[in-house]
């Protein structure tokens, strides 16, 4: 009985730990292994080729660097927009007004909707000849209806449009988390600074921002990892096109692995992305800690 109750907490966690090990750690290790082989179609490992896949990707493969560059633009574009509007939205919903709770609930809706639906809605709204966005623009006289804006079909603007769509979807999440952080700030802090005659901007700079920045930093890292690895919305909306304008690394993994069946190359891209994320996270954490000191 005593032994049982001492091992009980571990026993309770065991199913989850085993599950995670078998389905994340083991597959990840097997991806690492695959990346050193020359597997095609994934049926057999093929032969051991050492670092050849990595060498090919990094030094001979233009597509890899196009996707890498797109991934960086994609990630920082999204994070920039989502931070600014997430903070703005959170400060807005932190004001006292009627229907505040209802608004908070409604705001988060895009986040829970299936990605395929988000993709469809936006493709429909941005459809060049029948979409509502161009209809409004030509009605307002901003656009000549005979030369419609192409949005997702335009190699120069598709990336920007994708970033806006994705930010539309995930900013609500940022709003809700930042809002939760705002509500941990004790009201007395503001009251005492009111007595000192602090302006709104001063209060934001001296109280609000320093107190929520640890949470911002934490959420920021999450958002970075997620955005960098986002696959479904881009794939469903543009397939990486037009002319590779929105081809990011996750799409390249999918293409190499499941359209061209160059399995080992796809695995190698995953490993490169993983290492990149690890290095980025370490640098990020260091900076965050240093700032906290």
């Amino acid at each position, binding site marked *: 009985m005593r032994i049982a*109750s001492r091992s009980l907490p*571990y026993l*309770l*966690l065991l*199913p*989850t730990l085993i*599950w*995670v090990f078998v*389905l*994340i750690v*083991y*597959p*990840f290790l097997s*991806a690492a292994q*695959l990346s050193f082989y020359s597997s095609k179609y*994934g049926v057999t490992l093929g032969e051991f080729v050492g670092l050849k896949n990595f060498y090919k990707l990094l030094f001979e493969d233009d597509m890899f660097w196009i996707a890498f560059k797109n991934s960086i633009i994609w990630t920082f574009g999204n994070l920039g927009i989502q931070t600014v509007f997430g903070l703005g939205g959170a400060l*807005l*919903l932190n004001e006292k*007004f009627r229907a505040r*709770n209802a608004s908070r*609930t*409604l*705001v*988060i*809706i895009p986040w*829970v*909707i*299936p*990605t*395929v*639906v988000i993709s*469809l*809605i*936006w*493709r*429909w*709204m941005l*459809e060049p*000849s*029948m979409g*509502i966005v161009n*209809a409004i623009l030509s009605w307002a006289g901003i656009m000549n*209806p005979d030369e419609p804006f192409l949005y997702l079909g335009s190699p120069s603007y598709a990336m920007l449009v994708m970033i806006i769509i994705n930010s*539309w979807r995930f900013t*609500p999440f940022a709003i809700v988390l930042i809002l*939760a952080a705002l509500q941990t700030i004790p009201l007395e802090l503001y009251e005492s600074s009111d007595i000192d005659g602090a302006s709104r901007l001063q209060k934001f700079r001296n109280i609000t921002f320093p107190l929520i920045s640890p*949470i911002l930093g*934490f959420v920021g890292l999450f958002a970075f990892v997620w955005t*960098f*690895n986002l696959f*479904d919305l881009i*794939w*469903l909306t543009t397939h990486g096109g037009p002319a590779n304008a929105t081809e990011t690394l996750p799409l390249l*993994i*999918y293409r190499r692995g*499941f359209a061209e069946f160059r399995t080992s190359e*796809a*695995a190698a891209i*995953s490993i490169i992305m*993983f290492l990149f994320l690890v290095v980025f996270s370490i640098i990020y954490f260091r900076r965050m800690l240093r700032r906290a000191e």
Partner: protein
Amino acid sequence: MKVQPKNVIVYILVIVLLTVILFPFYWMFASSLKPIEEILTRNPMLVPIHPTLSHYIDLINPAALYGGWERGGRFFLIFIQNSLIVAGGSTVISVFLSVLGGYSLARFRYKGRELIAGSMLFVYMFPGVLLLVPMYELMSKAHLLDTHLSLIIVYVTFSAPFSVWLLRSFLETIPVEIEEAAMVDGTSRLGAFFRVMLPLAGPGIVTVATFSFITAWGEYMFSAILMFKDTMKTVPTGLAMYMGYQYIEWGMLLTGSVIAVIPVLLLFLPLANLFLKGLTAGAVKG
């Protein structure tokens, strides 16, 4: 309450925010009710002039098998069925695992506890796309391609760790004294768990279940690589199958989207407050 100029600005901004967020959904819904002539036009109207349920009927009617929207009419109900099985299955397993794990992390003091809790969050952060290739290999070796089970396994992998983390923060808010009192009265730990903890943890469990269900219901990527037969596709991959690049049947697809959104909203809206509380409690703590 006096109307101050500052208040007016707040209201205007809130209305703008809500319009930007909600209009696309309204537009999807309005379009799904429009007859084809009102959809394929350069001058769309804000409301359907001659609203019709024809897209809904076509989508669900099995008789549409050989007509109308290719094979879509018949298959859509199968997509829904597949999604319900997969999302339901992974929710049940996820809840089971997270009740056990969450209880362990919330109620016992032992070595490595914080490390395990932290790694749960790390696993949640772990990008699924990096496992795309090996997960396919694994399922292929296990002869699980084209089965509901393969998706259930994958979805539990990504929802259980975060659910453990989420439920732990819920359980920690339940005073340990309540449980102890029950145990003093002669109830075993197990009895106290079932009679006292579980009912009190109800809101947390519901939150975790909602999270798991919504995640699985909307997942596209793994469904796309693990399900090949048209009859095994889930709602996201099923809809995507009809999103061609040259010609798109907007009416039918938008209608499919409306139907895909309904279960999510039915689950989420009543629970939104609880859900957000659980989510943000976990995040703010982290």
